[in-house]
């Protein structure tokens, strides 16, 4: 809950989250919602050579929430949304674990799809999280992907 008693739009937490619960909460806020898009990011096992046994997600407490709230505000300014929710976990995670949830609700499906994709693209390039993966070959920080920058750039306003 935020100060006004409304459900929080952004959470950064160690605990897992429940997609069904989060979406039901969002859907209950308005009867004009016609479309809800969710994105769930999971820790991949990457079976084979790059196998992952564990992951540690470092973040910047305080700044993370601020960065996510800024990204949410930008999505709300761009699309007619009836609800948004972002949950990002930090701390130790295992293959199959949920990492991130983004929900976007709107009257129309196009806005919900675009806003959810935008939120993920911006989050991937602007929210201060860093992944460290451990496997048989030891532990290593995950490299940023150029494809993520490219994905984020497609939303730049000309």
């Amino acid at each position, binding site marked *: 809950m935020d100060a006004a008693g409304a459900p929080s739009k952004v959470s950064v937490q160690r605990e897992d989250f429940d997609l069904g619960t989060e979406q039901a909460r969002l859907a209950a806020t308005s009867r004009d919602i016609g479309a809800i898009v969710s994105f769930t990011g999971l820790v991949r096992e990457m079976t084979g050579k790059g196998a992952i046994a564990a992951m540690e997600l*470092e973040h910047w407490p305080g700044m993370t929430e601020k960065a996510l709230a800024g990204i949410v505000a930008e999505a709300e300014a761009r699309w007619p949304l009836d609800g948004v929710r972002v949950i990002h976990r930090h701390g130790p995670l295992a293959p199959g674990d949920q990492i991130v949830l983004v929900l976007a609700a709107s009257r129309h499906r196009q806005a919900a799809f675009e806003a959810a994709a935008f939120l993920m693209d911006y989050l991937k390039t602007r929210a201060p999280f860093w992944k460290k993966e451990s496997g048989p070959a030891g532990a290593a920080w995950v490299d940023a992907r150029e494809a993520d920058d490219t994905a984020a750039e497609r939303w730049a306003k000309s």
Partner: protein
Amino acid sequence: MQVLYFAWMRERVGAAAEEIDPGSAATARELAEVLKTRSEGHAAAFEDMRAVRCAVDQEMGDLDMPIAGAREVAFFPPVTGG
């Protein structure tokens, strides 16, 4: 001035935060040049400046951001969340 480090920059420096006198450094990049000289770990952290991102008083920006009057400057590798 408080300087923060994250991820492998934190590991190389060997500290998550330190109190620094920026001297005559006017930008984040100039501050990095000052920090580099503090230890081998610092030098390793700032070895490849193309892999270094920064935020001044929690505003992300490029390395040429001015740091005059800032209370906090953070250095970190490109983010990899989501």
